[in-house]
C-alpha cells in the first residue's frame, strides 16, 4: 500500500496522512526483530557445537604416538597419522606450486589486460569453475594424471587441488590489483618504468598483502578437501616419499576412520580433524605474520 503513497508523498507533504503506528505494527516489528535475532542464534549453535565437540573429543586423543607413528592394523590400539599429516603437506605443496603462479597470472591478466570482452569471458569462466563440484575435479585429475601414470599419486591429488585453487586466486588477485590507484601505475610509467616491471614491482607489490590473503583463502578452502583426493591421492597406510605413488592425506584418513565401525578409529578421526583444522589455521596465521613483519612485507 505504501507503494502508491511513495509517488504522491513528495507533492503532498503538508497534508499527507501518515498512518499511525498501531500496536499491531509495533508488535510485528518487534517480533520480526526477535525472529531475525533467533536465526542468528540457531545458525551459531552448530558452529559452537562443532568446535566444542571437536576440541573435547580431539584433545584427549592427540599424543606423541598420534603425531609420529603410522596407522596400526585393525584391532591394535595406538598408532597415528604422521604419514597422513606429511602426505597432506606434500599434496598441498604441489597444489600451491602449480596453482598459485597460474592463479596470480590469471588475476594480473584480468586486472591489467582484461578490462574488455576477453576479460569478461575469463571472469565468467572462473566464477563458473569455482562452482564445479570438487568430486568432478577429482574425476578430471584421474583422467589427466592417474590414467597416463597408471598410479594413484600425490601429483594427481596436487593437480586436482590446484585446479580448485586457480579460480579463487585469480578473482581475489584481480580485485586486489584493481584497488591499487591508477595514479601509482601512471607515476611509474611517468618515470619510464616498463609496463611489466610496473605490474610486478609496483602494482603487485602494493597489493601484496591482499593477494596473499586471497591465496591463503584458496589454500584453506582446498586444505580440508577430501572428495577430489579419493581417487587421485588414494591414501596409504605407510610412509611414502615418492610423488608418483599413492599418498596418505589427513582428510582421507579422517573419512576412512569415521565410517569404520571401530571406536579406536573414531577417536583417531576426531584427533585427525582437530589436527587438520589447527594446521590450516596455523598455516594461514603464519603467512599472515610473515606478510606483516617478515621479508614478504609489501610496500
Amino acid at each position, binding site marked *: 500500500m*505504501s507503494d502508491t503513497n511513495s509517488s504522491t508523498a513528495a507533492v503532498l507533504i503538508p497534508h499527507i496522512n501518515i498512518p499511525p503506528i498501531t500496536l499491531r505494527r509495533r508488535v510485528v516489528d518487534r517480533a520480526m526483530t526477535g525472529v531475525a535475532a533467533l*536465526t542468528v542464534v540457531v545458525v551459531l549453535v552448530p558452529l559452537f557445537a562443532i568446535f566444542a565437540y571437536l576440541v573435547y573429543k580431539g584433545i584427549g586423543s592427540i599424543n606423541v604416538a598420534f603425531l609420529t607413528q603410522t596407522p596400526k592394523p585393525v584391532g591394535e590400539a595406538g598408532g597415528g597419522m604422521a604419514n597422513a599429516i606429511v602426505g597432506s603437506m606434500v599434496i598441498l605443496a604441489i597444489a600451491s606450486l602449480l596453482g598459485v603462479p597460474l592463479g596470480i597470472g*590469471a588475476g594480473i591478466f584480468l586486472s591489467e589486460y582484461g*578490462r574488455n570482452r576477453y576479460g569478461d569471458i575469463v571472469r565468467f569462466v572462473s566464477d563458473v569453475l569455482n562452482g564445479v563440484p570438487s568430486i568432478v*575435479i577429482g574425476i578430471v585429475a584421474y583422467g589427466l594424471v592417474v590414467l597416463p601414470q597408471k598410479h594413484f599419486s600425490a601429483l594427481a591429488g596436487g593437480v586436482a587441488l590446484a585446479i580448485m585453487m586457480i579460480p579463487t586466486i585469480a578473482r581475489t588477485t584481480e580485485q586486489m590489483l584493481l584497488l591499487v590507484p591508477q595514479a601509482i601505475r601512471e607515476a611509474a610509467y611517468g618515470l*619510464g618504468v616498463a609496463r611489466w616491471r610496473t605490474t*610486478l614491482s609496483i602494482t603487485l607489490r602494493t597489493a601484496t598483502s591482499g593477494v596473499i590473503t586471497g591465496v591463503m583463502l584458496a589454500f584453506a578452502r582446498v586444505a580440508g578437501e*577430501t572428495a577430489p583426493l579419493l581417487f587421485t591421492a588414494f591414501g596409504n597406510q605407510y610412509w611414502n616419499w615418492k610423488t608418483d605413488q599413492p599418498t596418505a592425506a589427513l582428510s582421507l584418513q579422517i573419512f576412512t576412520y569415521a565410517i569404520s565401525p571401530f571406536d579406536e578409529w573414531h577417536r583417531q578421526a576426531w584427533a585427525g580433524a582437530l589436527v587438520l*583444522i589447527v594446521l*590450516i589455521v596455523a598455516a594461514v596465521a603464519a603467512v599472515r605474520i610473515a606478510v606483516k613483519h617478515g621479508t614478504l612485507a609489501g610496500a
Partner: protein
Amino acid sequence: MSNQALPRPRFNAPGPERGSKADLKIEARATPLLQGKVSEIPDAFFGWAMRLCGLAVVALLGLIVYQLVVGSELSWHAFGWKFFGQSDWNPVSDQYGALPFMYGTIVSSLLSLVIAVPLSIGVAVFITEMCPTGLRGTLSFTTELLAAIPSVVYGLWAIFVLVPILRAYVQPFLARTLGWTGLFSGPPYGIGMLAAGVILAIMIIPIISSITREVLTVIPQHQREAVLALGATRWEMIRMGVLRNARAGIVGAVILGLGRALGETMAVTMVIGNRPEIAKSLFAPGYTMASVLANEFTEATGNLYLSALIEIGLALFFVTIVVNALARLMVWSVTRGQPARSIA
C-alpha cells in the same frame, strides 16, 4: 587527462581512460625517457604470458568438459537417454540407471534449501539492518567461519552428534506430528535423507547469508530513508525498502547455495545411508550423484561401470554449471554498477 603526459609508447592504460586509439598513435612517436625500445620485447613477452594464464582458466574448463565427455562415451552409447530414466543400478549385470542418484541429489538439496534459506536471510537481515554496529563485524566473521570447516569434519560431527540427536528426538517428534504426510514415516534410523538435508543446510548457510548480505548492503541508503520517512516501522522498511529491491540478488544467492549443495560430497556420503532407492519418506536412506562417485569410483571394475560413473559426473557438472551461471547473472543484476567487490 594524464594520457598526454605519458612517455610510454603504445601505452594502453587499464581503467576508464582506455580506448582513445587516436591519442596513442600520436604518442607512439614521443621519445621515451628511459630504456627506450629495450622494454618492448619483455613487455610483449610479459603481456602474452599473462594472457596465457587467463587463457589457461578457459582451457581448464574445456579440459574438464573433454575429460568427462570422452570418459562417459561408452555408457552414453550403451544407454542413451535411458540412463537418466531408469532406476536399476547393478554392476553385476552391467545395468546402470542414474535415477535414484538424481532423485537423492535433488531431494537432499531442496530439503537443505527449505531449512537454510529462511535462516540465512534472517541472519543477513539481522547483521545488515538490525544489529548494533559494534557487533556486526564479529557476527559476520563468525558465520563465515562455518564455511571454513572442511566438509569431512562436518560429516564426522554429523555421524556422531547430529544423527543420534535426530534419531532420539527429532525423528520421533516429526513422525508423531507430521507422520500423516507420509514424508516422515518408517523406522527412525537417524541416518538418511533428513540427516543429509540438515547437514547440507548447515554447510550452505554461510554462502547464502554472506552473498545476501553483500546484496543488501548495495541497496542505496536513501531507499531506506524514504520508506522510514513515510512512517514505516523498521520491519516495514526492511520488507518494502530493502528485501523487495534485493529480490533478484537474494534469489541468486539461494541458487548459488543450491549449486554448492548439489555438488557437496563428503558430509552427505557419510550420513545419507548410500542405498540407491527412491523412497517417499525422508527418514529412508538414499544416495546422491556425488556420493556414488565417492564410494564406487575406485572400485569400478568394468569399463562400462567406470563410464557410467563418469556420465553421472558429467550430469552433475552440467547441472551445477547451469545453476551457477544462472545465479551469477542474478547476483550481478543487482550489484552491477558497484565496484565488483567480493561477490565470490
